[in-house]
């Protein structure tokens, strides 16, 4: 299946610091989705990006889709302890979803 590589694998930040996770593909993506999974929980859909260069914001979260549609990023401004969890990117291709390995975010109060 098609793969999306996600970095970093782990990120530890102090509350109030910013955080960014990156998703990269060797092939052009038709779309990218982002999910959040809290510790012990299940993935929850955050957003989908489909257009080249698209930027979407949800409060402190900013999502970007690269101009070449081969990469995407999720940026959290001024992290809070409620942001703790693992963030996954995923791409949909012919009704199947391929998930990145995730970035586990830990926020120290």
């Amino acid at each position: 299946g098609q793969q999306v590589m996600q970095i970093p694998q782990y990120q530890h930040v102090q509350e109030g610091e910013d955080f960014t996770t990156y998703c990269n593909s060797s092939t052009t993506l038709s779309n990218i989705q982002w999910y959040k999974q809290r510790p012990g929980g299940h993935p929850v859909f955050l957003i989908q990006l489909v257009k080249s260069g698209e930027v979407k914001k949800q409060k402190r979260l900013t999502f970007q889709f690269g101009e070449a549609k081969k990469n995407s990023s999720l940026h959290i401004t001024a992290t809070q302890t409620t942001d703790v969890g693992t963030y996954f990117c995923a791409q949909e291709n012919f009704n199947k979803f391929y998930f990145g390995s995730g970035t586990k975010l830990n926020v120290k109060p």
Partner: protein
Amino acid sequence: GAGVSQSPSNKVTEKGKDVELRCDPISGHTALYWYRQSLGQGLEFLIYFQGNSAPDKSGLPSDRFSAERTGGSVSTLTIQRTQQEDSAVYLCASTETSGRVEQFFGPGTRLTVL
């Protein structure tokens, strides 16, 4: 309405035994997916159902794994002759139609094979 439900929440079994995992999707959702998530890892696609069409089984790791979906609703994932490497959380997700990307996940079944 209720979200996606899965049962059991936890299953401990002995190597070589068969297990059945159940998923109840959101009512009216036509697409249903099974994923496997090993500890600290991402989600591995297993199988996809869309309505009454033949499922896409391309992600099943071996012929010990099978799944069915009765009446376009409830789905059962069966693992025969379980192995220790089958230990993982098995997640089910559903979407309104095959064209929708927002997947709604169930809480998962944690399978431990001793």
